[in-house]
């Protein structure tokens, strides 16, 4: 593929769709987390690609896209920490991380 904006967009669409497929089809809670990471990476790649290739306007900075990616990475770190805490707490309570077994929300 040539070094151009559509190539990057196609790669990030692939990341997004494979991540979504992972989220939809995994039974293992940690497998689902990996899918979420793929989706977030696809989004971040999109932001950086647009900030590199698009014509900069008067109001936006050239680096705005990269900063958005930076914030996405920070939010992903927070999300993974909380999600793994929930998974480990569910594991110690129910001895499994199969999401098909988590059918009740009572305490």
């Amino acid at each position, binding site marked *: *593929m*040539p*070094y151009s*904006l559509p190539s*990057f*967009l*196609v*790669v990030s*669409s*692939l*990341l*997004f*769709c*494979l991540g979504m*497929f*992972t989220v*939809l*089809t*995994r*039974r293992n809670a*940690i*497998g689902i987390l*990996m899918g979420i*990471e*793929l989706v977030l*990476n696809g989004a*971040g*790649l999109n932001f*950086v690609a647009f900030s*590199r*290739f*698009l*014509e*900069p306007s008067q109001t936006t*900075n050239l*680096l705005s896209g*990269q*900063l958005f*990616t*930076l*914030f996405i*990475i*920070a939010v*992903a*770190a*927070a999300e*993974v*920490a909380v999600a*793994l*805490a929930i*998974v*480990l*707490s*569910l*594991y*110690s*309570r129910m001895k499994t*991380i*199969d999401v*098909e077994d988590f059918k009740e929300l009572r305490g």
Partner: protein
Amino acid sequence: MKDIIFNVFILLTVIPCFWVALSSNIVHAAFSLLITLFGVAGLYVLLGADFIGVVQVIVYIGGILILIIFGVMMTQRGKLLPLSIQLPGKVFGAVLTGVILVALVLTATKSLWPVASILGEPQPTSAAIGDLLLGKYLIPFEVASVLLLVALVGAVLIVRRSVRGE
């Protein structure tokens, strides 16, 4: 030359990605995720985002992936549970994501993006990003740091409560 390196990083990103989605072994999926994240870091560097590339390696590979592998190890005692759902659901998921993928790829390739006519040479970005984070984007930066703090405390609290068995 640049095109060759670019395509190598694309393959490095996309091929392990399929393994993450389809592998029947959670440990293999975790290590494929490592290669994918590294490939994305390479693509960031090729886009002239050196700082983001390094942050990607440090935070994703050094932090998030290690956490995920810890999680895999701590929850894999006993029987190996089936990793994916049964076939009808899988087909439904494949059709749904396939439709979305076709739509996204068509949008990416057929749209007329307002692409800059001349691509400037990539400049070092760290100093400019630091200026923006402590200037124009100060409030989001502080909110992000508070979010990280809250997530940290919340994670500890959730695990502690379940260990105590309250």
